[in-house]
């Protein structure tokens, strides 16, 4: 059970959240300007690192806000949470 520190609501159990995969994958400015390969990258390809991963969560059962977290995919430890639109360093806690 992950306990995730919602930037708005504080620590809550994982069951209150929805997972949104990799963070900072912006919707392309103009999808039509992309090649099929580039569009496929946007649609289907995400990083999948073993280690720190900046990912998106939504606090579905609480404030319903999306936010980002940096989590180590080996230890599952979360080293930072920050609001959508913020960059990681602004609110990063710990190391």
């Amino acid at each position, binding site marked *: 059970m992950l306990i995730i520190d919602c930037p*708005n*609501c*504080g620590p*809550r*159990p994982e*069951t*209150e959240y929805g997972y949104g995969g990799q963070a900072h994958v912006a919707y392309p400015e103009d999808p039509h300007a992309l090649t099929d390969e580039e569009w496929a990258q946007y649609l289907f390809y995400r990083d999948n690192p073993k280690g720190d991963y900046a990912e998106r969560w939504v606090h*579905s*059962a*609480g*404030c*319903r*806000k999306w936010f980002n977290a940096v989590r180590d995919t080996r230890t599952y430890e979360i080293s930072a949470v920050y609001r959508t639109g913020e960059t990681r360093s602004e609110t990063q806690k710990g190391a």
Partner: protein
Amino acid sequence: MTMTAPEDTTVEVAAHVPPVDRARVLALRRSPAQGLDEEMRRGSGAAARLREVPFLTQVAIRATPGRDGSLTETLGLDLPTHVGEVAGAGDGNGLAVLWLSPDEFLAVGPDEAESGVSPEAYAGGLAEALGSERGQAVDVSANRTTLELSGSRARSVLEKSCELDLHPRVFPVGAAVATLLGSTGVILWRTGEDTWRVMPRASFATHVVRWLLDGMREYR
């Protein structure tokens, strides 16, 4: 604190129906847990009691604090600013505004039958007060119902399926949060030392009542 009708609201509904008729109309409402009254009475005991507090006026507010037009003025309350905070009547006796997210709030006030203010009119007034600011005020009075769980073991009953820390150090009287009770989303509001409001959405009311009653049986 009582809820007052926002002034200068011209809501069709209020205008349309004469007050005396309105009482007759209000009598036509059926609350989501109404059919479970008897079950709740039977399932209640000294240490844990459950009842429905039906028909509270509820308005869903989306607004950015500080940029809400005359919304707070109209409300007569400042919007709460952090998780758990309830502005106004933390004990539920009067108008209260619950924090749901940095830009989402729930105003809860008395039943129209008590206040004389129709929820539609009230929500309409708030929407108007918001003006052109980003946000929303929507009547959601029927969207959720309010269950009141009280008694010395009320907290234990909740702890059976609520994963939050309900210790008074962490969850004081007058605090409210949106969370899960089992797998059902609810707003949980501590209105007294041993009194809690559990607000599920209307379609979940039967389930939540049965779920709570099941958890109460050992304290009967």
